């Protein structure tokens, strides 16, 4: 299994949901360093752990040789996060509407909907046989710096 790579603004984790906790700690530490408010930190952590969870399970199919790459930076009053996996991608148009009566009681299918609700911009790129890259942008309220 590949090792975790952690550098300022970058973390690469193996395809195992046990690493989500480490990812959350990395996000919180990085975002606090950027001076992001606690409420915005929570929105970003919810969204990124959501995408990483999807990338591990649906993208990389929990293949221990594949990784999820997360980059985070502060640009012009916004946080930009890029989450990449090594899976085969998914059809964004085929995602079911989680608000319809028949889907409301389903256990799954709300992840991308929640991310789109919490972030200001969500850009999904499917690279054929070369993974999915999702870019998130969240305008933030800074508490210091």
């Amino acid at each position: 299994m590949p090792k975790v790579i952690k550098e300022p603004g970058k973390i690469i984790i193996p395809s195992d949901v046990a690493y989500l906790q480490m990812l959350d700690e990395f996000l919180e530490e990085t975002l606090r360093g950027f001076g992001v408010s606690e409420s915005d930190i929570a929105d970003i952590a919810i969204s990124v752990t959501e995408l990483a969870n999807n990338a591990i399970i649906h993208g990389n199919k929990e293949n221990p040789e594949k990784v999820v790459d997360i980059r985070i930076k502060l640009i012009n009053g916004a946080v930009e996060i890029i989450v990449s996996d090594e899976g085969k991608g998914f059809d964004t148009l085929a995602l079911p509407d989680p608000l319809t009566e028949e889907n409301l009681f389903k256990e799954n299918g709300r992840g991308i909907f929640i991310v789109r609700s919490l972030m200001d911009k969500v850009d999904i790129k499917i690279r054929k046989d070369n993974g999915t890259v999702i870019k998130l942008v969240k305008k933030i309220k800074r508490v210091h710096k």
Partner: protein
Amino acid sequence: MKLSQREINDVVILEPKGKIMGGPDATLLHDKLHELIKDGKKKVIVDLAKVDWMNSTGLGILISGLTTMRNNGGELKLANVTDKIESLLTITKLITVFENYDSLEEALNSFKT
């Protein structure tokens, strides 16, 4: 996430603490809810006072617990939902599905009626 459990009269109160984001901790809550159903427990309150946030995995666990509980003649109610989680319940419309109380006491009283 840590999970504690207690029982008042015949109502089981589950008290997760931390964040519910997927992984082994989330499995713990999922398994606990299904274990309660197997044990014939019909009244469950999930007290979310100490849960900072959850993502769709957490919401999925709660909705799965609720439907399984109702299919077995029971009920799962929420207490002390924090602002962040309430906003997620609102945008996903799950706020219309759960009985949600501002305090544990109110949730307990609701089982008496």
